[in-house]
């Protein structure tokens, strides 16, 4: 029995040490993932808390993952974020204040700011699946296999989504350059 399965077995028995290990391993990544969508520390913390609360409820109801715990946790978090945007559809996603450039910025900083804004706008124009794959792959840093487990899609479908997502991003940014 590998480490993750052993950890999950103990977590199902509500072993506090096992659960603490899970929390410490995955909560920072979930926080960052939520921050990239929500751009709000409080909301991101709320997302983390709700994600791990749902995990406990799943264990309590004799459900939850037998393996691939990380994918399971990311899926919970993403569902929570999706629900959040459905509840408050006017909230901006991706565009974040923490990418604001300080007042005493250089020319390079200004160029970086414009580029980041263009990427964020382009990301916002993607389909939900494309956006999620791009964020998980290039921002969150997960592998295709992990993403396929989170999205419950074959790896080939994940790669296709990445390809089409990047192409859409490039096209959007090229269109922006022409306009400017």
């Amino acid at each position, binding site marked *: 029995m590998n480490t993750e399965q052993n950890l999950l077995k103990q977590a199902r028995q509500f072993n506090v040490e096992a659960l603490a290990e899970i*929390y410490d391993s995955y909560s920072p990544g979930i926080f960052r993932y939520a921050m990239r969508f929500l751009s709000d520390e409080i909301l991101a913390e709320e997302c983390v808390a709700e994600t791990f609360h749902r995990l406990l409820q799943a264990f309590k109801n004799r459900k939850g993952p037998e393996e691939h715990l990380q994918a399971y946790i990311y899926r919970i978090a993403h569902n929570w974020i999706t629900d959040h945007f459905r509840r408050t559809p006017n909230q901006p996603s991706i565009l974040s204040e923490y990418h604001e450039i300080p007042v005493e910025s250089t020319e390079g900083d200004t160029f970086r700011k414009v580029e*980041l804004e263009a*990427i964020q706008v382009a990301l916002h124009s993607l389909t939900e699946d494309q956006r999620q794959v791009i964020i998980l792959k290039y*921002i969150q840093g997960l592998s295709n296999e992990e993403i396929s487990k989170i999205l419950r899609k074959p790896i080939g479908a994940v790669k296709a989504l990445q390809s089409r997502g*990047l192409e859409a991003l490039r096209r959007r940014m090229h269109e922006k350059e022409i306009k400017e």
Partner: protein
Amino acid sequence: MKYEPKDSELIEALGQLREVPERNIARAAEGRRIFLEEARNIRNSVSNRHDPRLKKWISISLFRKEPIKMPTFAVILLIVALVFGSTGATVAAAQSSLPDDALYPVKLLTEDARLGIAGNDEAGLQLALEFSSRRALEIQKMAQIGKEPPISVLARYQNQLEQVVRLAQKMPDDSSAIAVMIQVRQQIMEQDRIMAQTPNNQAEGTIKRVREMLQNQLQVIELGLEDPTQFRQQARMKIQIQTMTISPQQPTNSSQQPPRQTIGAGNPWTTGTPTPGSGYGPGTNDCAGCTPTKVGNGGNNPWTTGTPTPGSSYGPGPGSNPSATPGTGAGPGPQPTVKPGGQNGNPTQPGQIATKSSPQNPTQAPPQPTQGKGGGKP
């Protein structure tokens, strides 16, 4: 890769978005504490032995893969309980109903059923006595709420009391008859006391009639207590008369029918038991003007004389063959019976012949009564 350079630029640009502010340590610690606290609470509230408990419930639930084979007797018992369980509840609820309630017919049906399955006369008497007490209480309750009891309830009340008297007459010996009559007298007096206490502003006439009826029945019982032998003998006479009336092979000689001559002739057991308002009561024993029924002749029946239907063999017999079978045309003609309510007759049983009664109102109407000597309607 076709878009490798540009994709590399994009990926590099996307990588810049990885930068997020550091997580607040205090908030992170608080979130961790809450998470572990919740885990401890769940662990303490729910035992870890889920599986055995779950399997135990599954084992006793109906949703098993292979349900327990129920014994045949248990199946029958279950069906009986399902079918009659609700009926039993309805019957129980009906026992406190009043005549204007929807469940009252159920109550009466229950009473009839109990009387029908009574093992012997004494058991039937006890039941009839109990049911008569119910009628008294029903009348009282209806009067208390300002309603007049239906006539059908009064009729049933009277029938039950008469049934009590009849069954008391059937007791096997004098001592048991006396014991029963004492009990009946006590019950009737109790019912009369209930009626006396009943407010009669709405049902004054009804209460009065009920009390008269109770007094009449009480009088019969008092007479029975004075001479229990004759009281019981009267029942035997009635049974004998009924048997003679029913049997078509009975002798037609009038000299062999002394009981017929006594019915309606001032019978002491029926003298005091009229139905109030029904015209039912003792005969006047003054039947000089009546047209007597000539039993055994068959030639003087006013409803059949002279009205034969061709080919039907219906008509006056020759009157000379007393042993002939009625209906053959050679024996006695049908005897008219008198309905309760006749002026002179005093039949104590419906359908009982009234040998000294007026032939008015014959129950068997002839096809073409052309000579109505009795003056009654055919």
